[in-house]
């Protein structure tokens, strides 16, 4: 029977940890681009134009019913196939992480559109009218009144999305991404996967504190942004 070995766990841990930088790279870009896309999709879904609304709805349904791993393969192989066939452009030289970012931008684009839509609906539209009535433009009203409240109301969901990305993105090892998990798998393969369990324990020890830390961070952030006045204590003289 195999036993786990602490020093081997430590070795996997230390050798995989630097690749956290890859994980953070795709999380950061997928999040930003995904939410930008999600904003557009949400706007499309709330459009009065039926065709645009149906198109946005269709996108969300389609992407949500595609498993991330399939989407990864579709983007990795499909995108190159299309560009090669149609434009004779070869994408082979692009770093793998780019494909991962594209995949999760598509993915987060769908799920974040729902987050953004519910955040928008959570802010009373009377405030928009109030902003207009004191001479603000639609854009000013959105930026200064609606958006901050939408952000505040969706903090838990944004936190969940980041945690989802960190974990789900690990799947990208199947297309050869060397993020934390990809690196650990690579090292494990060098050992003929003899110590796979040690590797898994090491990975768990990396993912757990990150996720727990993020959870804490977002709950603190949510509290911080509560709209309450700060009591300034009179200075004693």
């Amino acid at each position: 029977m195999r036993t786990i070995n602490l020093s081997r766990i430590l070795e996997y841990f230390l050798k995989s940890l630097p690749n956290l930088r890859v994980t953070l790279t795709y999380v950061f870009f997928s999040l930003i681009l995904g939410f930008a896309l999600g904003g557009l999709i949400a706007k499309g879904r709330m459009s009065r134009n039926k065709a645009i609304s149906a198109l946005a709805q269709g996108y969300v349904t389609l992407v949500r019913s595609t498993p991330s791993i399939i989407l990864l393969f579709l983007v990795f192989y499909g995108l190159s196939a299309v560009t090669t066939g149609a434009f004779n452009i070869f994408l082979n030289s692009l770093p793998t992480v780019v494909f991962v970012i594209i995949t999760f931008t598509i993915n987060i684009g769908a799920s974040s559109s729902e987050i953004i839509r519910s955040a928008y609906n959570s802010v009373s539209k009377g405030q928009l009218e109030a902003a207009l009535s004191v001479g603000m433009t639609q854009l000013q009203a959105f930026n200064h009144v609606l958006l901050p409240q939408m952000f505040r109301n969706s903090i838990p969901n944004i936190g969940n999305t980041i945690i989802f990305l960190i974990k789900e993105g690990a799947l990208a090892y199947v297309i050869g991404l060397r993020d934390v998990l990809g690196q650990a798998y690579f090292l494990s393969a060098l050992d003929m996967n003899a110590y796979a369990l040690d590797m898994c324990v090491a990975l768990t020890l990396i993912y757990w504190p990150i996720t727990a830390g993020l959870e804490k961070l977002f709950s603190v952030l949510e509290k911080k942004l509560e709209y309450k006045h700060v009591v300034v204590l009179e200075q004693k003289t």
Partner: protein
Amino acid sequence: MLSVSNVHKAFGDNEVLKGVSFSVEKGDVVAILGSSGSGKTTLLRCLEFFEKADQGTIKIGETQADLHTASRQKIHELRQKTSFVFQNYNLFNNKNAIENVELGLTKGHGVSKVRAKEIARRSLEEVGLADRFDYYPSELSGGQQQRVAIARALAVEPEVIFFDEPTSALDPELVGEVLETISKLAKKGVTMVIVTHEMAFARDVATKAIYMDKGVIVEQGEAKELFTHPKEERTRQFLSRFLEGYDYVI
């Protein structure tokens, strides 16, 4: 100063406004009275372009616009000359009291931050909230919220302030403080158009009164005159309950 003519508005088959015209002079306090469903609120919302009227024109000072076809630019221009006090206050929940007042000044009217703070302070003091500058809407009572909303509307120095049933959402014991605030503005000569169910307030504070029923103006004139000698039978009926001083005792 403000004139409105021939406003029509229908929601589907339901004709809510059937050609409403009236005018307001500087310093007037106009009370719009009428039972629920008579179109008072819709009228006010059409004038602020929150609802798109089917027909009609509005003129404020020298700026004139068609209520149906006005361009975005024109609407913005007119909104800068007016402000609006809502039934349910509609304060910006992410801003405290003083920021609520400042925002319209800095963003909506291009007033400098320093100057805006000064004006906001003064406006809040005027509505009796000098001790509530840094309180958020969620921490204020309904009456206080509505007074912040009045300060916000007042601060931008509009030519006219529209009030849409400003006390209807308030607990009875909080109505007084808001009406008192509005009376104070009336004495200062602020031009206001007020949709209200507070009859005694309308009689005592308004200079003009308009009685609406089923989408038309039945009668309009000097407030005192309309309350004491209504010309139309329908007005008389509407006012009778109030004038006879019925009290409901359970």
